[in-house]
């Protein structure tokens, strides 16, 4: 469960996130929507410990990110929007490193690495440097690394960008399976179609403030039932 309580983040001359409160329950897939510069990435960075929180509190399954950072981070699996990580490591070296960081025992990591890389079709390339991977392959290796320790909360920043249709499908299936196991999936995206297909709950953020929070049905009800989500989204963001 993710609990965000009245968080605020300020940068010089700009309030990036203002008094944001959110709650994402276990077993849910949560879509986080907003235009460019709305505060999505800043929120995610605070949730994952990359940015310090100016005001408010974020807890992940009861652990406070500011007070118990290591314990909290151990519960999270984070897929950043940029997948150019550790480019000079080989795929297999990267996965081993991530598994060491998250203390994944040898037997479990053997099984996980084989399963995950096979389902994403990158097993063949594990002995190559990540530098030689395409954007999609880099994204896949990061997702594989994140899932090695079976995180209680999975946070993904624009995860489907650059993935081929088959891999997009695989990733979406994995997100569903993860939620089915009673875990939490939180992701940001611009692809409204994905939100419609996947999400149990949606939040829309604009100018650092929450504009909408609820499930898909509620969202559609609130903004004229017959309009598609894209129009709703535009309606939400055009007011500002």
């Amino acid at each position: 469960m993710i609990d965000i309580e009245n968080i605020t983040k300020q940068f010089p001359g700009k309030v990036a996130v203002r008094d944001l409160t959110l709650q994402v329950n276990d077993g849910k897939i949560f879509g986080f929507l907003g235009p460019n510069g709305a505060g999505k990435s800043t929120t995610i960075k605070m949730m994952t410990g990359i940015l310090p929180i100016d005001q408010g509190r974020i807890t992940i399954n009861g652990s406070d990110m500011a007070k118990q950072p290591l314990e909290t981070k151990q519960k999270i699996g984070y897929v950043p929007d940029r997948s150019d990580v550790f480019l000079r490591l080989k795929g297999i070296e990267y996965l081993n490193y991530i598994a060491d960081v998250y203390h994944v025992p040898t037997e479990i990591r053997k099984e996980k690495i084989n399963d995950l890389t096979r389902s994403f079709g990158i097993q063949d390339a594990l002995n190559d440097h990540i530098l030689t991977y395409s954007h999609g392959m880099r994204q896949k290796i990061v997702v594989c690394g994140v899932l090695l320790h079976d995180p209680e909360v999975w946070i993904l920043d624009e995860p489907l960008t650059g993935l081929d249709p088959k891999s997009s499908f695989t990733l979406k299936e994995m997100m569903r399976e993860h939620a089915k196991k009673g875990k939490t999936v939180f992701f940001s995206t611009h692809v409204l179609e994905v939100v419609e297909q996947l999400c149990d709950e949606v939040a829309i953020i604009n100018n650092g403030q929450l504009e909408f929070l609820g499930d898909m049905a509620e969202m559609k009800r609130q903004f004229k039932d017959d309009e598609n989500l894209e129009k709703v989204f535009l309606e939400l963001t055009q007011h500002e």
Partner: protein
Amino acid sequence: MNKTWRLIRLMLKMQFSMAGKSSGEKIGYLFLLIFAIPFSLFIFYAMDGIIGGLYEVLAPLNNESFILGILFISMFCLFIFISLGSIISSFYFADDIEAFISLPYQPYQIMLGKSAAPFLTLYVTNAAILAPALLIYGGYSDAGVLYYMYAILIWLVTPLLPFVLTAIVIMYLMRFLNLSKNKDRIKIVAGLLTFAFIIGLNIILRLDSGSNQLGEDLGQLFMEQNALLELVTAFFPSAYLSSISLTQPGTLLGFFYLVLLFLMTFGIFFIYLTAGQKLYFKGVLGLSAGSKNHLNEKKVTKHIKQKNVLYMSWMKEMKIMLRTPTFFTQIIVQSLVFPVLFIVIVVFDTGNSSLSAASIEPMLEGTDEKYIVLAMLGFTVFALGINPASISSVSRDGKSWFNHLYMPLQPKTVISSKVLAAFTINLVTLLVISVIALAFINIPAVIVSVWLVLSLITNWVTSVVGTSLDLYMPNLKWTDEREIFKGRMIGILALVIEVVLFGSMILILWKSAFITGLWATTIVLAVLLAVFTFVSHLILKKMIHNHFYSIAS
């Protein structure tokens, strides 16, 4: 032919066009041109000395054709050396190759287009070295008009043969190399070759007893080894043909050799076109092919092992430094330059320098061991230098720094792995100094052991200080790795701290009359270094606390 010619012109235009170049770059080229004038004058005078010296010795024996022989052989080797890099980058590394492959051109046509720019750049060297050398030789031998006519013709074709042969060999080898997967490795090898070249040059200069009479000495050498020279020229038929036809331009033999040279050049050029047609695309098309070391499930399982996080983080740092060409040359090669040069000075110097083994050894006898340890430690501080691995510890991660922040890693672990990596890189330097001290200068093992322990602590302190500095003032926003090492104050700052810290320590002990002998000096040094270590760790801790999470935002 017209189509090929148009392709060549297009590629040359793309390569040398000034369009899109900033005015700063244009001014840069202008300055380069202006600086080239005094530089070429310098080359001219240097060559005049060498050729004059050689001519003086060889002409009385009618052996002056050797001057031209050696000149053409040197040019041949130089052109191969220059062509290697330019051919690989133009033929295989350029981004536009794939765009041309899809056009209706024969492989040899694209190859010719790709050859144009690197081939023409050879003429800069050709104009700077061969042209004045031929003019100088003509001057010494009182040559007639025919010599200069022959010289122009030979000058024109000289770069062709080495260029074409190098290209054929490269094209042949590239069929077996998967370049896209080995780009980094090739760059690293190129860096190492440059390093070897510099060291090799240094050895040659040191072996030379006096450079004033280089020309005459070479002349003597060639006279004594007549047979060897002929043997060498036999491997370079073009050099043989060129030098004979230039020394006897008036004779039928000279003319015949000139014609033979041209026939040979055309023949090789034809082989070049055929080789290009057959080989070029094979190497290029292999660029995006997959790797040969595919992993299957069984092999993957073999690679999977649980390790300590600190060890894995250290390993990651080491691998990144070894595999990134810029880091490899700026950190690994840089840290090797000093110890390797030191070997060259101590081992190869014939005794002129005060640093050679022969002159150090007698100095050691009767000297208080305190001074030996202090001098060696001072030398270590100098050899470790600014420790480029430590002052780039944090900056090396660049925009990927944020990855340390969301992972459940103690900041202490991340930074310790970086300090350890910087420490490891310098171990090579210390090892080289130990071996030289023990094996070549015969410094007693006890002193070397004491020095080694003290140096290890010094190395640790410099690694901690460098990493603290980089944590305090990192450069994470680079787009090219070289920006980490260029135009940053951090290098000078690290050096100043090192000089003030260790320099004053060594100076005070050196001057102090109270502390004498090996053990008293060692104990004082050890205590001082322990204090430095403690203080540097306190500073590092503070830097981690204040900056670890905030430098990326």
